[in-house]
């Protein structure tokens, strides 16, 4: 009964939840910057996963995750970095992390991410590192 109202209700639910995490994509030269905003947990991670996968499938493996407005990350979000890092590097790119807030950085730190990922204080620095790598290679 009332399937119309039900669908509208679900849509409203989905909308409210969607607001808690968003991704904005920008080009910095030949590097793609994904600006992550809000809360990256098991509910929102599938959207981040789809965004990274889309970049790799489109042949853009030079990625920077701008974490300056990322307020939280759980293992579901961390898992996205782990799933795609080898593929990005094998394609001549990388997934670099930039501008992580201290309260979020501690979560990456607990799992030893700093030894495995290239983490930079600024987005510009992360982008520049790709260019430096280009110049050398």
């Amino acid at each position, binding site marked *: 009964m009332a399937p119309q109202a039900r669908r509208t209700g679900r849509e409203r639910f989905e909308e409210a*939840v969607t607001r*808690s995490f968003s991704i904005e994509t920008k080009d910095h030269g030949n590097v793609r910057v994904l600006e992550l905003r809000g809360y990256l*947990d098991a509910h929102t991670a599938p959207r981040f996963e789809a965004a990274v996968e889309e970049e790799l499938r489109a042949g853009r493996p030079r990625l920077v995750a701008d974490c300056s407005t990322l307020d939280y990350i759980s293992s579901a979000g961390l898992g996205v970095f782990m799933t795609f890092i080898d593929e990005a590097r094998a394609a001549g790119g990388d997934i670099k992390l930039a501008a992580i807030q*201290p*309260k979020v950085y*501690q979560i990456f730190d607990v*799992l030893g991410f700093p030894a*495995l990922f290239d983490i930079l204080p600024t987005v510009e620095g992360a982008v520049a590192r790709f260019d430096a790598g280009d110049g050398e290679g």
Partner: protein
Amino acid sequence: MASYERTFCLQVPSSTENLALIREFVSAIGEQAGFSETETVQLALAVDEACTNVIEHAYQNEASHEVTVRVTVDENEITFEVIDRGRGFDPTAEPVLPVEELIRQRRSGGLGLRLIRTIMDDVQYRIVPGQMNELRMVKKRHTGGGVSPAPGAPR
């Protein structure tokens, strides 16, 4: 009456859309109990991971069930009990692989239990057959246990 112990309880549908509410619940109690912001983020993370596991593994993403989080605060510690009535498991049988190895195997799983064990001072899991499964996590106040505060800036 003279006791300092306080109990809180939250029950929500078993859907990942309620993880944000669960974290707010834990953060409010952690802050009220006098834990620092750093510690409170970690407590919320550990409970998020435990509830995510219940939703995804115990209930296999069926939203029609319920996740319960009970919190007890006393002068020494904060205790979280995450309770489900779904499929139980044997946490001692889960391998703890290094993150490098997880990457090599292209496995994005396996981080949750590790985070919980790193953050909390004591973790126990018990199955009451036919009744419930309970993950019990204890964090002591101001001890060397758990994770140290994050550095001011990365690198």
